[in-house]
């Protein structure tokens, strides 16, 4: 008995020691004392400081190995301890940090929600940035001055700014990937004028189906495909005048798209395409890859993707035109939702940060022309080169693959910066110009931001918590059922009634109040 006890005790002891070793490693976070900040130029601080930074990792490289951070450390004298959980589990990790009060000094590319910002700023966990911006961030201040709508959007309900956004007003303001026609199909059918009404579109889709535009002698053409409805529904709803399936603004009035009569027209139209077998019957079950496989086999006439070429497995070119939005019978003009041009809440400083001034100066660099160019492309020869000695045009190096992701965090996530127009345009090639023109002609012309990014009060959030998720799930389910004909349109009134019961009114009311508050500022 004694021996047994001895063995057991020694085992426990060993384990205790192991655990002890481990714990001595903890506390490697930042705890640099406050240091003097240089107000201009580099380095930002004379004495090196280390801050802790929390950001999502897309899984290509460790952040401490990235050239961007190594260079920035040399220039600014600010180093970081990185906590970068995988992008897919970032949300969970973020909530754990707040729950365990283990805050990093800096939230970077963290995509906080507006309700996060409201909640944690009230608790004092995030610090207000307004004064810091005025004093230490001339580039951020210039940006806010240039775009008052951004300032309006990022100002929290208490009148302070707690986070900085990623701003890009140069790239095409797509809210989602646009839709493209298969140019080969159009050429085979001698179509020179793109359809402008929903009826003309229907006729064209019928021709795609029946006239064998891919010329293989088989009736294997799929006129219109999608991988779930979100893939294409922003466009098709827009043809009938619905700007969003959920809350959207119509001349200052907030409406819930999915219960409007115009939305019913959209469903009926999609149902018509479905019944005529013009809309891919695998649309609700296939994955993006399966959809892509059909594109590469040259079977699809009309589809949504970031580029037509990458969908069809060929070089991008101006051969494939962007879809011309068509007009429904009861509207004068379609409406296409566009991106507000910024991704909010990508940068915040927590109350544990002992050097908020230095941090602010550090991030301000990403909002300057040379700073945003540096984080996007680093130095010449890393990812791009000048095309000639005038050094005005840049071109990406060949066969980069994922190389960018090993050098800078600006890959696959929205990092806080203000994209510099001159830098962006210096890359523009023929295809980019084509896309830009197509976007101006076919999206921006009809474009509207469905709903500005609004701050809700804690009370308002409580009111609609739960309702929103239920509503979206119900509407989405019914959208599929109406389109596939699983439920006849005689059930429409019942559907609207159920949606109202779940709480459409409440949601609309809350958003109307918040929108009015936003508009009044």
């Amino acid at each position: 008995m004694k021996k047994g006890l001895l063995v057991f005790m020694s085992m426990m002891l060993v384990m205790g020691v192991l655990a002890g070793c481990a714990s001595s490693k903890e506390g490697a976070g930042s705890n640099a004392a406050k240091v003097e900040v240089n107000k201009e130029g580099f380095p930002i601080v004379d004495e090196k400081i280390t801050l802790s930074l929390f950001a999502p990792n897309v899984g290509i490289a460790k952040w401490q190995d990235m050239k961007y951070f190594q260079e920035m450390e040399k220039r600014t004298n600010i180093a970081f301890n990185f906590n970068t959980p995988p992008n897919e589990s970032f949300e969970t990790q973020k909530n754990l940090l707040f729950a365990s009060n283990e805050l990093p000094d800096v939230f970077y590319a963290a995509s906080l929600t507006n309700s996060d910002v409201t909640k944690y700023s009230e608790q004092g966990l995030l610090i207000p940035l307004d004064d810091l911006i005025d004093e230490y961030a001339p580039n951020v201040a210039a940006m806010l001055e240039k775009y008052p709508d951004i300032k309006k959007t990022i100002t929290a309900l208490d009148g302070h700014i707690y986070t900085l956004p990623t701003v890009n007003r140069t790239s095409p303001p797509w809210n989602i990937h646009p839709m493209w026609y298969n140019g080969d199909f159009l050429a085979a059918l001698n179509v020179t004028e793109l359809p402008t009404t929903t009826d003309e579109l229907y006729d064209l889709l019928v021709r795609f189906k029946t006239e064998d535009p891919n010329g293989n002698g088989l009736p294997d053409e799929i006129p219109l495909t999608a991988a779930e409805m979100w893939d294409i529904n922003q466009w098709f709803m827009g043809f009938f005048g619905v700007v969003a399936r959920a809350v959207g603004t119509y001349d200052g009035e907030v409406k819930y798209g999915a219960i409007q009569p115009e939305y019913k027209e959209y469903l009926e139209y999609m149902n018509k395409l479905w019944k005529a077998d013009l809309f891919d019957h695998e649309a609700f079950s296939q994955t993006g890859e399966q959809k892509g496989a059909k594109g590469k086999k040259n079977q699809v006439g009309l589809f949504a993707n970031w580029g037509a070429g990458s969908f069809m497995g060929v070089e991008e070119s101006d051969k494939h035109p962007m879809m011309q939005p068509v007009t429904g019978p009861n509207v004068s003009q379609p409406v296409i939702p566009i991106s507000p041009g910024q991704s909010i809440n990508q940068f915040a400083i927590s109350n544990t940060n002992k050097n908020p001034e230095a941090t602010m100066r550090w991030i301000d660099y990403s909002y300057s022309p040379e700073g945003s160019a540096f984080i996007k492309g680093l130095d010449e020869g890393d990812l791009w080169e000048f095309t000639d000695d005038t050094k005005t045009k840049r071109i990406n190096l060949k066969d980069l693959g994922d190389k960018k992701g090993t050098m800078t965090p600006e890959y696959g996530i929205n990092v806080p910066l203000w994209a510099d127009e001159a830098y962006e345009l210096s890359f523009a090639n023929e295809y980019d110009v084509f896309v830009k023109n197509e976007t101006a002609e076919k999206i921006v012309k009809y474009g509207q931001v469905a709903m500005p990014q609004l701050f809700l009060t804690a009370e308002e959030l409580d009111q609609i918590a739960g309702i929103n998720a239920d509503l979206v799930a119900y509407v989405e389910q019914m959208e599929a059922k109406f389109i596939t004909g699983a439920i006849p349109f005689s059930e429409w009134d019942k559907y609207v009634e159920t949606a109202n019961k779940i709480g459409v009114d409440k949601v609309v009311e809350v958003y109307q109040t918040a929108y009015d508050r936003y508009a009044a500022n």
Partner: protein
Amino acid sequence: MLLDTFSDKVFKFFNYTFLTMALVVVLYPVIFIVSASISSPDLVNSGEMWLLPKGITFEGYKMVFDNPQIWNGYKNTLIYTFLGTSINLLVTIPASYALSRKDFVGRGLITGLLLVTMFVSGGLIPSYLLIKSLGLIDTIWVMILPGAASVYNIIVCRTFFQGSIPGELEESAKIDGASNLTLFLKIILPLSAPIIAVMALFYGVGHWNSYFNALIYIRNQDLYPLQLVLRQILVLQEMSAEMTMDAATAEAMQNKATIADTVKYAVIIVATLPLIVIYPFMQRFFVKGVMIGSVKG
């Protein structure tokens, strides 16, 4: 030799039919994945490849073998599996033997307390706080210590000891002057090979497949186990209509989708092969061990 009666024949017919169906259902996904891993992803996605490989390419395997993260993950998983399983056994076997002894005072109470933990757990955030206070965050021990003893396995083991080792054996050993430790090491352990093998398999598979602890508690990418590395390659960020992004982000995501498409099946094979190889060797213990534990208990 007796001829089969009619009813025997009917029975056999259905028996073979059902077994064949079961075999097809189980075997098809395995063959599909093996074939898909060496087929061109486009043909797999378009559904043209459904049984035998088409458009054979080893690009997927090449990418897997060229990826240093996967190898590092492999190494980590091997460490976690061997070290973790050893500690699991070191804890489980003595604990369950002690609980199986009728002369162990308070064993009912201790068993009861253990059982409670099967039904009530702390939840994610309290667990996180505990692990954090123990200083285990971002160390390999977080992969090994928190689940060192599984109550379910302790109960299975205890039942085995109670059922298959006769009390007389213990008595006679004691009369011959064996202490408890001698009894455990010299008599009980040699008789328990089947249950030890079964436990090693249970725990080993658990460690091999586990990723959740790593997901929550490990930050240093050098410590990621294989499954987490695979998850990072395969799980594509969910795109939604509400998401706004610029061209660079879209391009990165499309790149990732293409890579995931190519390596998906190769990665599945590489990650499960070791278990598939080990399993037949452990299986004889497995069947015997569980039978002894349950039937005679």
